[in-house]
Each structure stands twice: as C-alpha cells, then as structure tokens.
C-alpha cells in the first residue's frame, strides 16, 4: 500500500500541490450470524482505499477512492485539489508535521487470522446455545454474532510523516428476547478481544439472558428523586455522549458545556476520566492517530476537576499547544476529527453489593434508550427512557420500565458519589467503566 500512497504524493507534486498527506487502508473482515443453531449469515469482506488531504494556503481539500487504478489515482488527487479551492483558508490549518516516535502498543494478535470459519461459527453457536439454555423464559435470541476485522493502515506525507501498523479485533454479541405473561424484555452482552481465544462465548450468552430475564415483570415505578446506579453498559453510553463535549473541536466552536472550565470542579471528587490510546487491551489503541501523531494518555478529569481537552493537529495549533493524538479517522473515506480513543472511567472502587445494601431507595439502571437522541451534548440536558431494577431497603425488589431519567450532565457528574468494583470494557466507543452511583436523579414514572 505504501507504493499506492507514494504514487498519490508523486501525482500531487506533479500537479503543483506541495503540502499533501495520503492515507491508505486495507482490511479483511468476517461477520457470522447464527439463528436457532444454524448459520444464518456469513460474510467475508475485503476493503481497501486511499484518502488524500491537500493543504493550499490554509485551505483543505479531501478526496478518497476505493479504485486504485492509475486513472483513479489521478482523479482523486485532482478532486482533492479542486475541493481545497472552495474551502475557506484558515491560518491554523496545516499539514501535520512529524510528532515523534509511535506509541509502543501491540494491536495485532496473529491468532486472529489463523482462525477458520468453523472456529468462528463455533463461537457464535456457543453464545446462542448458552443464552437459550440459561433460562426457559428465553423466547428467542434475535441476534447472535461473531465479527472480526484485521486491518492495516498506512500514512505518508510531504511533511515527512510516514508509518503503518496492523490492528485486529473480534467480538461476540447476543441480543436475547425473554417472555413472561405476554411481556417481552430484551438483554444483550458482548465479549471483545484481539483473538478468538480471548472471547468468552458462554459468558456472553448467560449474561444476555440474565439481563433480559431480570426485567420480566417490569412496570412503571412512582416518580421520585433518588440515587441511581448506572451499570457499566449504561455508564459507557453516557460517557460516550459526554466525551464529545471534551473535544477541543466542541470547545473552540462554542459547542461544549465545559468550555472555559479547566481547573474547575465538574464532577464528584472521586472521579478520574482519562483518554488513553496506548492501553494493550483497549481496542481503539494504536501507535499513532489518523494524522500520524503518536497516541497518548490524556487526563480529562482528575479528582473531579476538569484537566483539559482532546486535540488533533488543527485544534492544537489553534490553542497554541500540541496534539494529544486524537485526530481519528473513520477509514480511508473519512477526514480526521477529534474523537476519544479508549476512555477510562476510574476511581476508588466499592463492592457493588455494599453499594446496593447501603441504598434505602433507588434504581439500578441496566438499559437506557434515547441517550443519543434524548441527551443534548451542548446544553448538557438529557431525558432518557430507562429499564432496571428498583432497590428498596438495601435490596433489589421489582424490575421497572417505561420510566424516564432526566437531569443535566454536569449535575449528574457532580452527583457521582461512588464507583463499583465491576469495571469492564464496553465496545461501541471502547470505554472501560465500572457501575457509577449518582445521587439525586429525577426519575419520571407514575
């Protein structure tokens, strides 16, 4: 692939473009779905392409192609030049310069590509079989999947950035429907890893079923202001939405409720929030980001105090500082944008059982729908629909559903008063988080 992106740089030079970056990607992936112990869908995929960024007096043009023929490479270079011509110049937009040695992190396990279809299928079958066997009230396992991806990325620029790495990951997933007295509840679970051997299919099946069956018999609960425990899945979803407000892009564009609050208390004092692109077990880890900048570790909240934000090259130049290695791309067709790598929610852990025992009245939230539509990352207000289990007198009592949880993000962060001892990786944004206990949340029910 280096030959292709080098050819792109040569063609751009021939057309008079001096500041050019080429990004190439090639990957293979597998996706297997099983249903009722039969393979329902098996997909094998190959993907490749290049993206080109041209910087012309502060104006940026981007173009991409999956066709790597000579004519298509000429075309993609010309498109990037044409696109730069309509973009407005910006004094802070510049081709990223080499920013040091890539981070030392292993992102590929050769066992991933040594696997056969039969082994991949066996994982999915075990997930489903375990889910079905875990409880007679399982109506069906609507989705059972095994997915993997093995990709190489390449970057080269006229500024001297040059690098490549290979990354692989896989996951197993189940989505279970359980039924009792005509009421259907759902539950899901994942297992993620860099090789099939790291997945725990039985745990996925068992947990997905448990999460569905524990909600059977759920009904609305009375409206109240009470502490809630967000389980790791729900916590991860909240921190995922919140993280967009912790990017320098949102701050500089007036879209962040955290703008200008560095050094202020914004969360319960036990809370630590870190972006870390160098963790061995973080699936978003990489030696460098989509601009060739080495991945790093960036504290966002320490002791409840806002420490700073995430930067790519552009936002860093604008702020007069260095990129934090958070210029991430969604593949060759995407532009780099400021996004978290792996987010880690940490702090002193309290055994979950102790937390529950100490709760006179509250709700364990195991599912929240509408976080992406019901939460406003600009104003910080949110109102989402939740399911979970009521806690009364220090013990779980009845499941609840069709109730809402409302508040604002800073109020919620400030209300965090304990963290569970059940930290785990949640994919979909790569977030490591335990259960999070928040005081005084508004629950809307009957």
């Amino acid at each position, binding site marked *: 692939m280096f030959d292709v992106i080098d050819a792109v740089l040569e063609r751009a030079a021939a057309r008079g473009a001096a500041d050019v970056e080429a990004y190439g990607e090639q990957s293979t992936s597998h996706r297997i779905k099983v249903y009722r112990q039969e393979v329902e869908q098996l997909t094998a995929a190959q993907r490749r392409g290049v993206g080109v960024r041209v910087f012309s007096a502060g104006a940026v043009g981007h173009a*991409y192609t999956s066709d790597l023929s000579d004519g298509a490479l000429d075309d993609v270079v010309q498109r990037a030049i044409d696109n730069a011509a309509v973009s407005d110049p910006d004094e802070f937009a510049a081709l990223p310069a080499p920013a040091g040695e890539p981070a030392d992190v292993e992102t590929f396990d050769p066992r991933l590509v040594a696997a056969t279809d039969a082994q991949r299928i066996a994982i999915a079958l075990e997930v489903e079989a375990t889910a079905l066997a875990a409880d007679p009230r399982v109506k069906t396992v609507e989705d059972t999947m095994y997915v993997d991806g093995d990709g190489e990325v390449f970057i080269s620029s006229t500024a001297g950035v040059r690098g490549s790495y290979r990354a692989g990951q896989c996951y197993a997933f189940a989505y279970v429907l359980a039924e009792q007295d005509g009421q259907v509840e*759902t539950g899901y679970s994942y297992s993620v890893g860099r090789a099939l051997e790291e997945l725990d299919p039985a745990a996925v099946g068992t947990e997905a079923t448990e999460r569905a069956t524990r909600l059977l018999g759920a009904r609305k609960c009375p409206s109240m202001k009470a502490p809630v425990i967000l389980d790791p899945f729900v916590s991860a979803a909240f921190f995922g939405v919140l993280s967009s407000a912790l990017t320098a892009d949102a701050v500089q564009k*007036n879209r962040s409720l955290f703008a200008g609050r560095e050094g202020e208390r914004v969360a319960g004092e036990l809370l630590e929030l870190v972006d870390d692109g160098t963790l061995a077990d973080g699936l978003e880890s990489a030696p460098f980001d989509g601009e060739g900048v080495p991945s790093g570790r960036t504290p966002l909240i320490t002791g409840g105090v806002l420490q700073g934000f995430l930067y790519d090259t552009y936002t860093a130049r604008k702020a007069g500082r260095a990129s934090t290695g958070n210029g991430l791309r969604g593949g060759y067709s995407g532009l780099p944008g400021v996004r978290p790598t792996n987010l880690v929610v940490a702090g002193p852990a309290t055994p979950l059982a102790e937390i529950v025992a100490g709760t006179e009245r509250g709700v364990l939230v195991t599912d929240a729908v509408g976080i992406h539509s019901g939460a406003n990352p600009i104003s910080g207000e949110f109102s989402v629909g939740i399911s979970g289990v009521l806690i009364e007198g220090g013990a779980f009592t009845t499941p609840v559903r069709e109730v809402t949880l409302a508040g604002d993000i800073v109020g919620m962060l400030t209300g965090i008063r304990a963290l569970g001892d059940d930290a785990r990786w949640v994919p979909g944004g790569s977030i490591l988080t335990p259960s999070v206990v928040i005081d005084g949340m508004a629950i809307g029910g009957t």
Partner: protein
Amino acid sequence: MDVAAFDIGLLHATIARALRRGGDFAEVFLEDRESLGLRLEDGRIEQTSGGREVGAAVRLLSGERTYYAYSDAVDEAGLTAAAESVAAAVSAGAAGPEVVDLGAVRADAGKNPVLSPPGDVAIARKAELVRAGDEAARAASSEIVQATIGYGDTRQRVLIANSLGDLVFDDRTRTRFIAQVVARRGEVIQTGHETVGGSAGFELVDEEIARRVARTAAEKATIMLGSKPAPVGAMPVVLANGFGGTLFHEACGHGLEADAIAKGASIYDGKMGEVVAASIVSAYDDGAIPNGWGSQAFDDEGVPTQKTMVIEDGRLTGYLYDRLRAREAGAPPTGNGRRQSFRHVPIPRMTTTYIAPGDVTAEDIIAATPRGFYAKSLAGGQVEPASGNFVFGVAEGYLIEEGRITTPLRGATLVGNGIDILMKIDMIAGDFDVKTGICGKDGQGVPVGTGQATLRIAEMTVGGTG
C-alpha cells in the same frame, strides 16, 4: 469502470460460479458511488470532501442461510474470488439451479427525474448556497452563536444481476441541504435543525431555499431559548406534521419489517388483519414517491419499489419484505430490500413511511386540547421492536393550555409503546408533510422519508426535567 456497460457474460459466470456447490439463489451487486460534502461551521467552509467508491458483492442464498462476500476490486479476479468465497462457505452438495439467461438491462430513469445533475454544477456554486445559509442563520437573531450548514450530493449507480435472470440498472442521485443552528442567551444554549432533501438533482436547492432552511433552524433554536423545563407525566400529545412522522417510523415501522416478524421479534407478529391502531389510522410505506428522499426506482435487490398499505382503517394489512423474508413467508417482495452499500447485506427497510392525512385542521386539534404537549419537532429516538417500547427526544415542544399553544418547553422526551399510541390517536389533520432522515439498523444507514399530518395522541408519557 462503467457499471451500466459492465460485461454481462462475467456477471452470468459469477452467478454460476457462486452456485457451483449448492444454494438456490445467487446475485451480483455492482456499485459506483460518487459523493461530495460541503460543511460550513464558524463562518468557514471546512475541509471539503468527496470521492468515489466502487465495489462488488456476491450473495448466495441457501434456504434461510445467506453467504456474502464483497470486494473493492470490480474485475474478473475480484468477482471470481467473491464467488469462490460464498461457494466455499455453503455446505458441499449438488450444484444449485441453472442460472436463467440475463436479458436486456432494465432501468426506469423516469421515476426520479434529475433536472440538474449535481456533477455538472461547479463546487463553487454549491459553496455559495452554504454561505447563503450561514448568512441567513446569523441574520435571524443576534442570539445565534453558531451555525453548521451542510450540502451533500451523491450519485450511486448500481447494476444488479441474479440467478432468476433479473438484470437491473439504477442511477440514483440524491441532494440534501442541512442547517443546524445554536442560539445562546445567558447560560441557556439551544439548537435548531432543519433539512431539505430528495432523490433529485441540484434543482432541489437554490439561494432562497437555502436561506429558508437556515432561517427555520435559527428560529427553532431562538424560540427554545425562552423555554421552560418540560413537565413530567401523562397528558395528551399533539405531534406536528412532518418531523412527527419519525415517531411512526421508529415506534411502529420497524416492527413491520419482515425480519423482525420472522424472528418473532415484533409486536406485529401474528397480528395480520387485526386491529393495531385507531380506526382513523391508515398508513403506507412508499418507495415510489417521485423524487422522494427515501425513493428509488428499484430496491437494492432489483425489485421495483412500490406503495404498500401497512395499516388500513386501524387494521394491519402488510409487512415490508426483502427477497429472503418474502421467500420464507411465501409473500411477494415489496421493494424494501435495501443496503447501505455493496459492503452490506440487504435487509428489509422502510422507504418513506407515513400515516395518511385526515380531514380536520391542525388548528382544530389544538383548539380541542384543553391541556397538553405540542411536539413540533422530534430529535430522533429509539425503539425496541420486540416490545414496541420507544423513547423520543423532543427538539421543539410547547405547552398547550386552554386550546392554545403557549410556553416553549425543553428537555422533553416522549415515552411509550408503539401499539398503545397508535390505538390512542384520536384526531388527524390534513396538513401532510414528509421530512428526510437517515435511518440506522444493523449498522447500516439508508435515506428514509418520514411523514404525517398533525395528529393527537389522547394520552402519552412526557418525561421532562421540570
């Protein structure tokens, strides 16, 4: 590569190769997609981006099993490798059926006419529209602190060939203009969103339209600055025309998609012919609305799109099928087999889904509501098709008091159950309108239209912060 003039002999050979070791249906899907996106934020047109993606997918069906392979290499080697990959995956057995001869290419260019192909329009001209939008948004109020204006067009050419002998070419152009505006008053920050789009060309947007879309978004944001936190509780809810249709799409439409039905994962499973809505409710999915954002001449399996009645006078009358689910159910496909790109397996998807208009006016409905919640614009939502439970964020909402729209309310969500709310619709107006969106399912985003007239749900749970 020219998709329309692709080597038909190679398509035939690829289909035959895929069926070599078994299976009962094979298909080749070729795609050539060109896209351009312009985005203005902070008064500046940012990194303008565009490109071209070409690729091919080979799909093999064997009973209820699907084998799928795709590659960016659209040549003999790429197609052969993909066909070999699916053939190798099927359990070894006798060869599948003979491939029916591919006849002449079918196309239906007249269905979504493109008057001004975006590819023929200079990018600078598109940039002018985005700037006009920014200007209009900022001129709307001194409280506007940010405007994000987007313009996008795509031309997607697909060629679909299958073992039944179908050979379909579809040339799809879509154009869209989007405005998202942020207003601020003291500590209160609110956003407004508006969009226009269609399966049409550059004729869809001009300066005046760009300005109107941006101004509307700015007005929404500004109005919400004066909002109060929404109350919590059950009350009558009036859903405005246009964006209100998102609720039907999410809360009911997904449950009508035949994959959810086949897995017993829909509240509409086994309810054909039964009452699932109030008798004043009729609803459709229509992928053939001329120039509609969710429209195309054929679906992504080469089946012509159509208008499908899903609810007639409150009774369930239809599901939305792709080929696989139609085969299983012994029903004809309905032109709802869609995929985001060659990298995605086609699945049943909505096109433009809507509740048909009624015969009162929106004013009648408000006037007939002593106290309630008026949801003018929804922010999107989520639903569990299995239970029908849904949650929607309300982008723009108001209190209704004594038959009049009064205080703007913020932070509201609508919580409920799909069948329950359809049964509780008690008034539908005639002011029908369709809005554009991108619907996500199984990791695939496809353009959809959602529509309805203003209607009232007699009682629904509003979750607010007040």
